[in-house]
């Protein structure tokens, strides 16, 4: 029970920091309708980079510190990144009939996210060798 509470506290703390970091990036790079959503793309790719590294180390039994998967993965990275805002931005692009922009944004987000996970997964595994 105590361990459970510790895990929940770690996830809350990670989510707290992740949401604040995302809000600060969104404020620094304001999104204008019809433009490229740099803030969302930036937090999403940054979170995917960190998550790939953190979880690969957990999978390999080399976690950075106890409960790092919960604190940094489920908490920080998952909260730093966002799916709902990405979808809303896509819908607004479709509303404006900017279909090419919407398609490019969806494709770049997914490919950059996958590439980020692949990069840091390989990095974490290379360190182990």
């Amino acid at each position, binding site marked *: 029970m105590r361990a459970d509470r510790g895990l*929940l506290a770690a*996830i*809350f*703390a*990670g*989510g*707290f*920091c*992740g*949401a*604040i970091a*995302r*809000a*600060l990036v*969104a*404020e620094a790079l304001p999104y204008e309708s019809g433009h490229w959503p740099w803030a969302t793309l930036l937090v*999403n790719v940054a*979170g*995917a980079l*960190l*998550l*790939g590294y953190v*979880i690969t180390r957990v999978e390999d039994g080399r976690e950075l510190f106890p409960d790092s998967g919960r604190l940094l*993965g*489920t*908490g920080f*990275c*998952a*909260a*730093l*990144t*966002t*799916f*709902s*805002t*990405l*979808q*809303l931005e*896509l*819908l607004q692009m*479709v509303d404006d009939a900017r279909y090419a922009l919407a398609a490019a944004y*969806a494709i770049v*987000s*997914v490919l950059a*996210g*996958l590439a*980020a*996970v*692949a990069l840091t*997964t390989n990095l974490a595994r290379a360190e182990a060798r």
Partner: protein
Amino acid sequence: MSAALLLLVGILGGAGALARLRVDAAVTARAGRRTDPARRQRFPLGILAVNLGGALLLGIVVGFAVHGDRYTLIATGLLGSYTTFSTWVFDSHRLASEGRRGAAALNVGASLGLGLLAVWLGRELGGLF
């Protein structure tokens, strides 16, 4: 953004991360009882449900024409943190690297397509009130 607003964004972000954990676990457990145990962990249905639900809720908030600090708290704080991009691309990467390219493509395609539908539907629903 004021320090007080940022603090509340963080608290709601932490709550969003905990809600994601609960919904993900509940959906994963429920799906696991109905499907082949060997495959139950393979498709990340829990995160799909979280992301689609979060996209629907964000659409409702937009449809309600919520603005200003209230919008920041709900959209950036709670729902931005509840939904996740990093876990989604991480799971897709792992599915693909296990050779389950069809499942990976389904996870990417279904999330994007249904997510857009969910945020649109939410906005229509929110606009009714």
